[in-house]
């Protein structure tokens, strides 16, 4: 038995070595390369948005890097966090060992961003988030964490106010997806509902992805004026579709997790007319983004998703910060700490989607919130959703 094992083991080792070869070359620190990593779900149910983030960042690097960052080549290193905290953290631990990575653009899911940012914080690696809305992301006061979008506590407030004052809703049943994001934003909506004249008939969470009949039956029997789903489109779409199929007539509403061209694909007619709040809209909403949309379509052969423009801006801010840090370091490669500080020092940065300045926690000041109404069940028409309201709200001060 031992005799036949040796050649087999050697063969396996040789194969493994071959496939792992590129990293054999001493790449301890490539002198003139700076890498920006992205972490977002590139596979799985939310990959539409995750890939959009990666592509937005890539387009930014293609268009802006050579212009802004002199003396260094900038590369994108995409990572797939699969919307799972464990994977995000494992990726984070891996990417911090690459000394060329000086910035991370990510994540999509707050539940992944929070633990991963612990790793970034330990290593002074700056993270700019194009999409994370949970307040805890910045409330921890980590210097490395910055975001370009608003927060769920404000978003829940905006949603409740709109439902109560504008839609004159009197009762709501809240369902969430039992993730950090979904449950978080649902709780904020619930907390703000009573002061806007809305009675909360129920608050329930579910991990179910396919069969919502048992949950929908009691909801239908209570006859709420509105159903609020705190979660993401891949689950919400099925939920709303089955709700309408069961004859539930309530209004539907959701947070920015609804914002994806996959929602009409899954839910069809059921979501037409519903509203959602968001911290980012389809790129078509931004006057400065017209060229971005055209360029994106030319390169990737499809329309940009929500958050793609935000990813572009995050990356753009990152590149500017890198350039500032390089200058401050006298033309040499900056340390991660220097990049982190440079990001926070950005003031009045004119991006595609807004002009950005950050407060002491890393929240954008002010942050923009939209209330949007869905007009069509055709995914291609997602950009034509009606913008009902735009609000610019200062981020809340740190609670501690």
């Amino acid at each position, binding site marked *: 038995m031992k005799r036949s094992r040796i050649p087999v083991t050697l063969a396996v080792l040789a194969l493994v070595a071959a496939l792992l070869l590129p990293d054999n070359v001493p790449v301890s620190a490539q002198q003139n390369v700076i890498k920006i990593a992205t972490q977002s779900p590139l596979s799985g149910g939310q990959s539409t948005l995750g890939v959009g983030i990666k592509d937005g960042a890539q387009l930014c690097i293609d268009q802006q890097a050579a212009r802004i960052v002199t003396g260094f080549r900038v590369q994108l290193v995409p990572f797939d966090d699969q919307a799972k905290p464990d994977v995000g953290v494992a990726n984070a631990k891996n990417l911090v060992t690459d000394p060329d990575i000086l910035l991370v653009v990510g994540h999509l899911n707050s539940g992944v961003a929070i633990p991963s940012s612990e790793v970034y914080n330990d290593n002074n690696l700056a993270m700019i988030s194009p999409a994370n809305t949970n307040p805890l992301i910045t409330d921890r006061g980590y210097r490395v964490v910055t975001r370009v979008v608003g927060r769920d506590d404000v978003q829940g407030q905006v949603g409740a106010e709109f439902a109560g004052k504008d839609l004159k809703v009197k009762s709501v049943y809240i369902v969430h997806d039992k993730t950090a994001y979904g449950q978080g934003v649902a709780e904020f909506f619930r907390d703000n509902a009573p002061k806007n004249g809305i009675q909360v008939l129920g*608050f*329930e969470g579910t991990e179910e992805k*396919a069969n919502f*009949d*048992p949950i929908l039956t*009691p909801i239908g029997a*209570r006859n709420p004026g509105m159903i609020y789903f705190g979660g993401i489109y891949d689950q919400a*779409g099925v939920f709303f579709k089955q709700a309408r*199929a069961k004859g539930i007539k309530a209004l539907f509403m959701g947070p920015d997790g609804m914002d994806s061209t996959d929602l009409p694909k899954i839910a069809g007619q059921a979501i037409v007319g519903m509203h959602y709040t968001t911290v980012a809209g389809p790129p078509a909403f931004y006057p400065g983004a017209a060229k971005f949309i055209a360029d994106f379509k030319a390169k990737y052969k499809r329309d940009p998703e929500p958050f793609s423009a935000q990813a572009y801006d995050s990356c753009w801010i990152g590149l500017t910060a890198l350039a500032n840090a390089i200058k401050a370091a006298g033309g040499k490669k900056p340390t991660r700490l220097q990049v982190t500080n440079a990001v926070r020092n950005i003031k009045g940065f004119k991006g595609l989607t807004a002009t950005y300045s950050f407060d002491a926690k890393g929240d954008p000041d002010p942050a923009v919130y939209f209330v949007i109404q869905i007009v069509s069940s055709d995914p291609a028409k997602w950009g034509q959703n009606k913008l009902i309201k735009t609000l610019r709200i200062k981020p809340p001060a740190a609670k501690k």
Partner: protein
Amino acid sequence: MEWDILIRIFPQVLVDGVTLGFVYALIALGYTMVYGVLEMINFAHSEIFVMGAFVGAEVLLIMQASGALGSIPALPLLVIVLAAGMAAAGGLAVAVERVAYRPLRGAPRLVPLISAIGVSFFLQDAIRLTESLWRNAFFLTYPTIAFFDERIRLVATVDISVKSLTLIAVSILMLVGLSLFVGRTKLGKAIRAVAEDQATAGLMGINVNGMISLTFLIGGMMGGAAGALFGVQYGTINPYTGFIPGIKAFTAAVLGGIGNIPGAMLGGVVLGLLESFAASYMSLLSGGAFGAEYKDIFAFSMLILILIFRPRGLLGEVVREKL
């Protein structure tokens, strides 16, 4: 406690539970048949079920892309989807048996069980791989077939969608057909003989391997039909969809009496009802403290209780182990 709501939704929850129950019943058939013949839990059956769902989805999606979807009336469409799902799932089941279980026949109990787990995991990712390459997405949504989404009002507070009715009808047809096959035909008798005593059946001139393959084929076809119907009924599927329904269906098979075909049907419906009632009523009854998220725990607890207090199930026969 809102009694009026509790009472009002009762019939609807009942209907939903029966629908769900028949899905479980169809899947449970695959488990119970294989267990009856080989005394082994075919862990991979949940992926065979999902395979049926995926093939059905692909057929519909391809038809939709080529524009043919509108031109075929609903019922023949359903037959096509079912047939495709059943064929694919049945074929997969036979292949799995040939590759992963037959070499292990006669090995200690643990061995084919672990192999089955391995096959289950392999298939989950194999389906994901295939779909990723083919379609660059593996969370698939079934295109809607308008006819099936219509709802029929049964009584004042209860309505049922056409697809639920279809599901129940098709399930009953298949179950009856299967019972007749196993109980009345010669092949069925051969299968029962192999389930009873493999060696003797072989001595009687029965092609044991062939009968085992046939069992897997039939069980797989049932699972595939369940998959296609599941997809039409609930809309979205992914390669990991099969895991939880698979466990629940096995629970149903045990509940009804493992190895027993009417038992699987009964067990499935009972479990579907239990789960539906648990999900709908838990939050109402507990004042919001416990909600629908505990329905899976409920199902597993049922399993444990059944196995402790009535290990032979509702319709199963007592098996005395000779010491």
